[in-house]
């Protein structure tokens, strides 16, 4: 990944935070909200974008007798994320 071709997905810190949270595994909406500390509205907006770009996928599951949405990273997102982290490292340590 080059500095000039950073995907739009990493241009928002909230989207970056959502992707980082999902690195450790599947999470419910409430878990994502707690971990990112964002509002429902902002989180929903960014999740919708990530879903439409194919970076994450969602499914409905029953948890504690309630129907909740769970989110997980797609393989494409993991690859892009790794490339982005390498890019960040190269920016911080140019040598």
């Amino acid at each position, binding site marked *: 990944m080059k*500095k000039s071709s950073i995907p739009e997905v990493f241009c928002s*810190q909230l989207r*970056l935070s959502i992707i980082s*949270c999902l690195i*450790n595994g599947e999470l419910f909406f409430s878990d994502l909200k707690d971990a990112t500390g964002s509002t429902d509205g902002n989180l929903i907006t960014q999740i919708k974008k990530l879903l439409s770009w194919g970076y994450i996928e969602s499914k409905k599951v029953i948890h504690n007798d309630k129907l909740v949405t769970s989110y997980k990273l797609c393989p494409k997102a993991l690859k892009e994320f790794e490339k982005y982290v390498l890019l960040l490292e190269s*920016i*911080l340590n140019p040598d």
Partner: protein
Amino acid sequence: MTTEQQKAASDISVIKEALDNTKTNNKLLQWLFLLSGIKNIFFLTSITLLHLFVSNLDTIGVWHISINIVCYVFIAAAAIKITYIARRSSNKYCITYFSIYSAVVILMPLILLVTRIMSGMIATDSNAALISLNQLSTFLEVALFSGALITVGVLGSARGFSVASILNILIYLLLYVSDKTLIWGEVQTGTISSDYSSIYYTVIISFGYIILGIYLLVKNKRNAS
């Protein structure tokens, strides 16, 4: 630092924070509980056997101190090692619990020792002061077990553990104020008896920790599969 580098550093800190907030590795907590339980069962068994088979009070005293030191060194080393590893690989709830655990397990015996020495010099009734210190130490360990229950509850999103942590302290205090004693029997050195609150304390700091450790072990295995 250029603007580009500032943005990169900021993104790295966002990633780190997000990873820290969602880590679900409870293996260290599981090991701490199991080691605490094993250490307490070893201590309890050794002291019981000592009182059953040794009649000389001086010999009992020396062995009692030796067993105490061995157990202290074992659990202090385990707590320091686990807290050190946890700083890199655990979530914030585990790290907080490890820090509190280490403070209680490592510092409290030392503080109690110093206070015992000082109370002998300044208190008019040093026996009463020693009894109060022991009661305080026991209550702290009961509260620490409640902390363990809360931590497991938070990590597993199980509300039942928070209720159990309150019940734990409530049961201990009720047994303590009831002031009832159970007589086990006669031995060479006298009668063996225990307060119900002491029995409860012994059970939770030994079998309670073991059960919590096994619970996490099973949960971690299920998560891994």
